[in-house]
């Protein structure tokens, strides 16, 4: 750095900003970074505005070198293969990898210097976890023939008769041994047999039987127990797959390979006939194979996983707790997966159960139907299920035997179809759909004016749920019937027609849709809902009565509770009073005693003083009387003596009586919370008195007989005219 060049003072270099300019003494130094936010290292251009020269070239070269180093070297150093810096165990800069541990004190000692014996801990037994896969096996009956009849040491490469892993593996299969050894079935059965298990797992009718064998392929087998079949039987009865080496059609390997359409995505499926080990391997393992106990004992690790702490008390020994993983016995079937309790996580528990039921359905795919030449259907369990548990596994799905009539198989699986329609899952689907639809309808849809709290909503939900579930049952039953008929009809031909799973489900769904449309079209649901609503209303009166009864009971209960409460309170008060009276009595007794003693002392002193005074007075009077005025002075002296004596009397201080604190016990009365008695609204029934229409009493018209009374004609009494005599008064004089 020479003076003329003067390094640019890019002291405030900020990559993000990309540009810094600073001027000193007329020199403008600028650091320009193109596209700074992306590839700063790859494209840095330093431009000196004033002096371009050696410095710029040098910086360019350095920048380029640094860039190359960063691009080429740093990723290598940062990679996983990079040689890390020396790491000293135990230092904070050398963290442990998770699975490792550090031995703090490899040789712990007791306080007396003796070494501590550290018992070795047990090793962790590896646990094999195999996830069951939804893998319906496609069982080719031809594989049976090839198995039972593969030539010993033949080119099939199937070794000990394990080409299919079907016959020889099923040690439970005893009765149908002969048929299983038949040298093959027609090609039609190739698809059908494996298909049946797909129906079994979903409860769908396996409509099919492969009845006849292809004699062209089967090596001309006649009769039920031909040679090849006998070989196969011996194989299965003995449970030794080596028996399969006998017999034979000598199926070449490539043909056998092609005749076994395996699902290649299943682990082990591609090795169906690739030798002993591969052939015996299950397509997928539902139950993990039991661990084989080693006769050499439990392997012990070289070092315990952890050691004692360095601070030990004297004579303390370390006893590591080693939990040995129990060895699984042969044929061990792991317990079913944990089921969560529905109390705490109720819905989650139900979901887990639903998943478990689905899982059980998936495991049912291990059931395989194999058509026999005799027309019967053999039911067997694949290698996925361990030996010894196949019978139970098969019986769980309704197949307790190994050989059935095809119609029986159809009936069993058809019954399972109907069972599936009655399962919790199907009923749950019905409930969810009906609830969701009615929530929408009564919450946002056409009937939102009634609301989701109305009895109409409840009635609609209930009716829809019942109809959906019933329609599902009818649909399943219909498909089961039709499938059973198809099975029977085709089985009479020695023909297997197995419906794939989705087709049976599709047919069921079609019937379900049709039934649903018909129900809605004909208003079956509406009629039912109206009746249910009426029922709800009728039940409302019953509910009211129940409420009234409940209210009465509540009132009586409340009265009883109140009485109990009052009794408790009164008893408590009495107890409190009793305690308080006792205490106050004690205190009063003590106080009165003390006061009485004090009063007695005081009175005694006063009386003594009075007596002395009286005596002195008497003496003084006598002296006065006797001695005259000389002794008068003695009186004063006596008075002074008296006062002095009184003053010199001791002060009687009453002792302080500290009464004991009597703490009354806190009596916490129980809170008697009266039950809220919500009196129901008693809606008195409207008693509509019948209109009593008084009958109009129409009195009969009594027509009284006309009594014609006789006219009584009173006799005319002619009174004699009395003519008064004219009296002529004499005129009295005129005036």
């Amino acid at each position, binding site marked *: 750095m020479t003076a003329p060049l003067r390094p640019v003072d890019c002291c405030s270099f900020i990559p993000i900003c990309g540009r810094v300019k600073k001027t000193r003494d007329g020199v403008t130094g600028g650091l320009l970074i193109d596209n700074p936010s992306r590839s700063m290292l790859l494209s840095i251009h330093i431009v000196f505005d004033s002096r371009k020269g050696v410095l710029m070239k040098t910086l360019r070269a350095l920048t380029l070198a640094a860039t190359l180093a960063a691009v080429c070297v740093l990723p290598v150093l940062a990679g996983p293969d990079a040689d890390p810096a020396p790491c000293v165990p135990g230092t904070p800069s050398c963290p442990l990898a998770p699975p490792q541990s550090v031995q703090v004190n490899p040789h712990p000692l007791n306080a007396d210097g003796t070494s501590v014996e550290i018992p070795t801990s047990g090793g962790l037994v590896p646990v094999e976890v195999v996830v069951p896969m*939804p893998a*319906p*096996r*496609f069982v080719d009956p031809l594989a049976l023939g090839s198995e039972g009849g593969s030539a010993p040491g033949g080119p099939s490469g199937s070794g000990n008769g394990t080409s299919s892993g079907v016959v020889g593996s099923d040690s439970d299969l005893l009765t149908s041994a002969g048929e299983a050894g038949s040298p*093959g079935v*027609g*090609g039609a059965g190739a*698809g*059908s047999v494996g*298909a049946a298990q797909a129906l079994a*797992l*979903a409860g769908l009718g396996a409509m099919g039987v492969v*009845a006849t064998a292809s004699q062209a392929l089967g090596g001309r087998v006649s009769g039920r127990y031909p040679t090849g079949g006998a070989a196969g039987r011996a194989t299965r009865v003995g449970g030794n797959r080596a028996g399969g080496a006998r017999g034979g059609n000598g199926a070449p390997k490539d043909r056998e390979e*092609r005749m076994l*359409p*395996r*699902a290649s995505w299943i682990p082990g499926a591609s090795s169906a006939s690739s030798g002993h080990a591969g052939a015996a391997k299950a397509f997928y393992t539902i139950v993990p194979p039991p661990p084989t106990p080693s006769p050499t004992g439990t392997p012990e690790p070289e070092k315990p996983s952890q050691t004692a702490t360095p601070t030990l008390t004297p004579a303390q020994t370390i006893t590591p707790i080693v939990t040995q993983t129990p060895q699984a016995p042969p044929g061990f079937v792991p317990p079913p997966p944990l089921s969560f309790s529905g109390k705490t996580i109720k819905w989650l528990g139900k979901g887990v159960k639903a998943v478990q039921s*689905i899982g059980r359905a998936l495991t049912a795919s291990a059931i395989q139907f194999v058509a026999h030449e*005799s*027309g019967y259907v053999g039911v067997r369990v694949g290698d996925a299920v361990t030996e010894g548990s196949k019978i139970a596994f098969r019986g769980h799905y309704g197949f307790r035997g190994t050989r059935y*009539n095809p*119609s029986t198989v159809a009936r069993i699986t058809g019954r399972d179809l109907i069972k599936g*329609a009655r399962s919790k899952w*199907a*009923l749950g689907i019905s409930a969810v759909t009906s609830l969701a*639809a009615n929530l929408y*309808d009564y919450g946002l849809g056409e009937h939102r004016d009634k609301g989701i709290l109305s009895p109409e909503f409840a009635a609609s939900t209930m009716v829809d749920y019942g*109809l*959906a579930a019933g*329609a*599902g049952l009818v*649909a399943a039953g*219909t498909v089961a019937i*039709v499938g059973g008929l*198809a099975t*029977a*009809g*085709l*089985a*009479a*031909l020695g*023909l297997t*027609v197995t419906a*794939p*799973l*989705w*087709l049976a489900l*599709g*047919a069921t*769904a*079609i*019937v*379900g*849709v*049709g039934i*649903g*449309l*018909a*129900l*809605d079209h004909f208003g079956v649901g509406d009629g039912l809902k109206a009746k249910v609503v009426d029922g709800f209303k009728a039940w409302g009166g019953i509910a009211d009565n129940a409420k009234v009864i409940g209210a009465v009971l509540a009132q009586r209960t409340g009265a009883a509770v109140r009485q109990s409460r009052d009794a408790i309170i009164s008893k408590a008060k009495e107890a409190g009073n009793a305690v308080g009276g006792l205490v106050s009595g004690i205190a009063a007794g003590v106080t009165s005693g003390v006061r009485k003693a004090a009063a007695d002392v005081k009175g005694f002193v006063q009386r003594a003083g009075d007596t002395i005074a009286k005596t002195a007075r008497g003496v003084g009077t006598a002296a006065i009387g006797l001695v005259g005025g000389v002794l008068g002075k003695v009186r004063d002296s006596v008075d002074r003596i008296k006062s002095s004596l009184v003053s010199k009397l001791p002060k009687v201080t009453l002792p302080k009586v500290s009464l004991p604190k009597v703490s009354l016990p806190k009596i916490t009365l129980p809170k008697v919370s009266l039950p809220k008695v919500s009196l129901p609204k008693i809606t008195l029934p409207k008693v509509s008195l019948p209109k009593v229409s008084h009958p109009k009493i129409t009195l009969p018209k009594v027509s009284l007989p006309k009594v014609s009374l006789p006219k009584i004609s009173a006799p005319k009494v002619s009174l004699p005219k009395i003519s008064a005599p004219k009296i002529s008064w004499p005129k009295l004089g005129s005036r």
Partner: protein
Amino acid sequence: MAKQGQRNRPAASSWTWWKAATLAPLGLGVFGAVFVLVPTYSSTALKVAIGLTVAGTVAAVWSVTRPNWWAAIAYINSWLFLMLGTAMRAWATLIPQVWVWLVPLAVAYLLAWTLPAISPRFSARILREQFAPETRWGRGCLTLFLVVGPAAGALGASVGMYGSRFGQGTAVMLVMAVLGSAVAVGFAQAVAEQSWPKRPWAQPADFGARDGTR
């Protein structure tokens, strides 16, 4: 062949003719009722349904009592025709131009029946994929059907009831059309593939030779 059939008959003789005559109209009648009533009642459809039901019943009784390949195929076809007819009526509701859907549907149905003769390997592979799917899609579909399987009828009824109630009749018809077409064609292919080797005119060497497995 006759002896072979006689020997095989006991395995399937649990279905008597009267049982088949009783149950076949019942099972086929439900599909016939769906065919008649969806999307609306049709007197023509009723006649067709009655004819197919009667024919299917006769074929079922015949195939149960006297093993006959044609009778069995006739019985299955009567059933599939009912489903196919339901799908056709639904398609007709959706698409008035009949040829748009009728030609592909008829071709697919015929192709499904003849596929074992045309391409045995492909036919066998299709059937095998339905039973033991090897493709990702097949596995996914199988898992889906396993999950919804038991509730298929209830789900269908829910679609039927609520779809029309909420004014989604077109969607319901679409479901019915697609489902009916797929099931009818798929069933036809499955039955054809499995029953093809037992056809009356088959040569003995054809048993197993046309199943595509060798």
